[in-house]
């Protein structure tokens, strides 16, 4: 795509921006943040294959289409979204085409946690919001994070006070209902010292036409706090999904994430985890299960900035049809981050002749007393395993489907929410047994 078309594209996306209502007086700085983001969008260009960060993901099919921000909330009844409910979740925030839908949301009265959104509960927690919102997800060099920030309006806010353990996961559900719409989901989770919480970030669609989701999530985990983050991307088959998530881990905090990418015609997920305190621990697991002409790109960056940090990563791709999976996982060990212990693994299964994969696990190490390993494999099912199952009477076809399912299930099993785990296991089973 040429530069002129790209510039025009960003302009057309920005068109809806100036009509946003002003934030409340206590949050006046947000208007400045938005203005700054608008300026930045003007300076940045749409990434192309020439950018090292985007060299395997061609987004020209996205930039050929034009999208507008939703003007009105699609009237949905609770029954319309019932199938997306997660039994264990006592708190549910629902956004329809990027706009907050209070009648579909349900917030528990006293779960000890603040669950709100920017326009409604922002003023009350202004100081905390100011300390975190827009502070973790840097948009200086990221046009999609800048666009999202330019449209910052209905952000989901979850504030977990000191030493509070939130029972049951918090479900933030983003629903796409309109064709041609660009939505800018935004989520901020602040887990204060010693707290514990599970967040489910869920992207679904009630339609099959083209639309564009440009999401940003920021998660701050204070000393000794623990966050489990489950991310399910099950967008519509014609959807475009680009998301940035920035996580900041303080001393001895723990962050466990499982991201599952199933939907969208094209998806890109950037997850940046920064260990800012000593002895922080994270596990970052992912599964991309795609087929037909889908493209799923996951870029993760785990930054060990302090000593005694631990990271574990297992990322899997199961690619069928003529789909294309991309994985780029960088582990950075900064000078002085001694005794870092990091293990990263990228495992990939290609199910058809036309499917393909680009994987890049990367280590950058600037400290000498560290233990870092990474590995990557691309291949097909292990013939020994297939043989073992067939020797016990299973047909070759059934054996392969079973092993393919098991390959994906290893990630699904790491989801700490039983009902969601079962739901996704069913999805994986359906999709893997439907494969040729």
């Amino acid at each position, binding site marked *: 795509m040429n530069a002129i078309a790209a510039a025009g594209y960003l302009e057309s996306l920005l068109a809806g921006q100036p009509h946003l209502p002003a934030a409340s007086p206590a949050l006046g700085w947000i208007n400045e943040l938005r203005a700054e983001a608008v300026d930045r969008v003007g300076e940045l260009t749409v990434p192309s294959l020439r950018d090292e960060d985007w060299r395997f993901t061609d987004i020209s099919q996205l930039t050929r289409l034009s999208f507008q921000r939703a003007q009105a909330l699609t009237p949905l009844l609770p029954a319309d979204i019932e199938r997306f409910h997660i039994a264990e979740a006592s708190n549910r925030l629902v956004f329809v085409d990027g706009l907050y839908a209070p009648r579909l949301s349900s917030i528990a009265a006293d779960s000890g946690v603040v669950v709100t959104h920017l326009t409604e509960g922002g003023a009350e927690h202004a100081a905390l919001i100011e300390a975190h919102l827009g502070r973790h997800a840097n948009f200086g060099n990221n046009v999609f994070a800048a666009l999202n920030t330019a449209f910052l309006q209905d952000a989901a806010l979850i504030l977990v006070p000191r030493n509070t353990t939130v029972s049951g996961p918090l479900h933030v559900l983003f629903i796409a209902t309109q064709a041609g719409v660009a939505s800018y989901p935004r989520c901020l989770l602040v887990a204060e010292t010693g707290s514990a919480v599970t967040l489910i970030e869920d992207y679904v669609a009630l339609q099959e036409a083209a639309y564009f989701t440009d999401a940003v999530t920021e998660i701050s985990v204070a000393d000794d706090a623990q966050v489990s983050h489950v991310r399910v991307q099950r967008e519509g088959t014609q959807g475009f999904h680009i998301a940035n998530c920035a996580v900041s881990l303080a001393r001895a905090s723990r962050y466990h994430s499982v991201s599952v990418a199933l939907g969208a015609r094209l998806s890109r997920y950037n997850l940046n985890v920064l260990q800012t305190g000593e002895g922080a621990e994270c596990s970052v697991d992912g599964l991309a299960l795609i087929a037909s002409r889908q493209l799923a790109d996951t870029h993760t960056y785990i930054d060990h900035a302090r000593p005694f940090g631990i990271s574990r990563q297992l990322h899997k791709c199961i690619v069928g049809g003529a789909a294309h999976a991309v994985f780029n996982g960088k582990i950075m060990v900064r000078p*002085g981050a001694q005794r870092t212990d990091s293990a990263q693994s990228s495992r990939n299964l290609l199910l058809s*002749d036309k499917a*393909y994969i680009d994987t890049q696990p990367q280590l950058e190490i600037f400290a*000498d007393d560290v*233990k870092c390993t990474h*590995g*990557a494999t*691309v*291949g097909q099912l292990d013939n020994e395993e297939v043989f073992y199952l067939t020797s016990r009477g299973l047909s070759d076809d059934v054996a392969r489907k079973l092993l393919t399912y098991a390959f994906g299930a290893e990630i699904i099993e790491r989801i700490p929410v039983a009902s969601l785990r079962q739901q996704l296991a069913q999805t994986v089973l359906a999709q893997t047994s439907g494969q040729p």
Partner: protein
Amino acid sequence: MSAVLQNLVNQPYKHGFVTDIESDVAPRGLSEETILMISAKKQEPEWLLDFRLKAYRQWLTMVEPAWPNVKYPPIDFQEISYYAAPKPKKKLSSMDEVDPELLRTFEKLGVPMHERAALAGVAVDVIFDSVSVTTTYKHKLAEVGIIFGSISEAVHEHPELVKKYLGSVVPVGDNFYAALNSAVFTDGSFCFIPKGVKCPMDLSTYFRINTEGSGQFERTLIIAEEGASVSYLEGCTAPRFDTNQLHAAVVELIALDNADIKYSTVQNWYAGDESGVGGIYNFVTKRGLCRGVNSRISWTQVETGSAITWKYPSCVLLGDNSVGEFYSVAVTNHHQQADTGTKMIHIGRNTRSTIVSKGISAGLSNNSYRGLVKVAPSAEGARNYSQCDSMLIGDRCSANTFPYIQVRNNRAKVEHEASTSKIGEDQLFLFAQRGIGAEEAVSMIINGFCKDVFQQLPMEFAVEATKLLGFKLEGSVG
């Protein structure tokens, strides 16, 4: 870092002297006139001049690669002299007529130019600055049909072969430095092993940069016809200058059906001093084409020198069942920067590749492995195994691993593993507690770390490589 480690990794550079010899040095700067001048000096045929000009015009449109993980001030390509050659007293017909100063230089470097003094069974082509000064065992090799000598000679004596293969693996516009080399290369080695011939001795090229301010742009072309095999060695040194010198070589290997080429390098260009002043910029394109079925190309490199190394000896596995191998030890110290690795391009069916890379960083150096494994849709049954290990000595250096894995065939299998280890106080204490001194402990750890690569080197080179690392061999080289 302990004092013992310091001493072990900080061996002084032993090849830093300058030979006082009268040289024919071209004025600095690059233009079409420079290329015409080089071509005229070498009395080249027109097709070769066209090749150079095409490369030069393409080079003008290209930019230096920005993706390597190395930092250096911009290079002024007009400040480099593109031709430097020792002035021959007269036309050489035998070794006895070589300038005695040159003979002494290479003797000092441990490179024998006299056949009678040569290492048993190694033929050497010696390149001084930009030209080949002598080739040993040339006639003996000719008896079995092997052509071995400088590429300048080959251009005149075997134009059909050079014309057929030059640029066939690394096209003129392949990358910025390959284009530059194609435009201005002055000499290099040429080697042709005819059908069915197993080369009876190791062939070797020794490269020496002598003149300050000159770049070295040599071009090596090795062809192994059907069923032929050859083992080729390359060594490099340069004097100590405070200015950086550019070395942009191109090596092309072609293996036809059932042919086998083994290419080993011990690279010890001047690396600059402890504070990072001076040293060679080693920006090299090396690529082998396994054109025939069952062919094999194996690269082994021990990289200890150069201020900056940017080099990815690669294999294009076109023939079915062909095999590519890459074994590398890269050692960096002080302010050295290395971004090195390989590319394995699987195109043929059942092609196999192995990558074993060992990076050792010390001082303030930066050592990166960058490797591409690409499996094309046609590469049914392709297999790759990569292992990339890093060792850090001290806490101010860095080690990076950047593997790129691109698979377009679902019956291929690609595996990559990497790990990091260190030599530190605790490791040395374990050895000391069992009665083993630090020097021996470091030697054992380093040799253990590198043995998978050293095992691939011909014996003389293995000894040379181990000496270079400044460590004793202690039975770990098989």
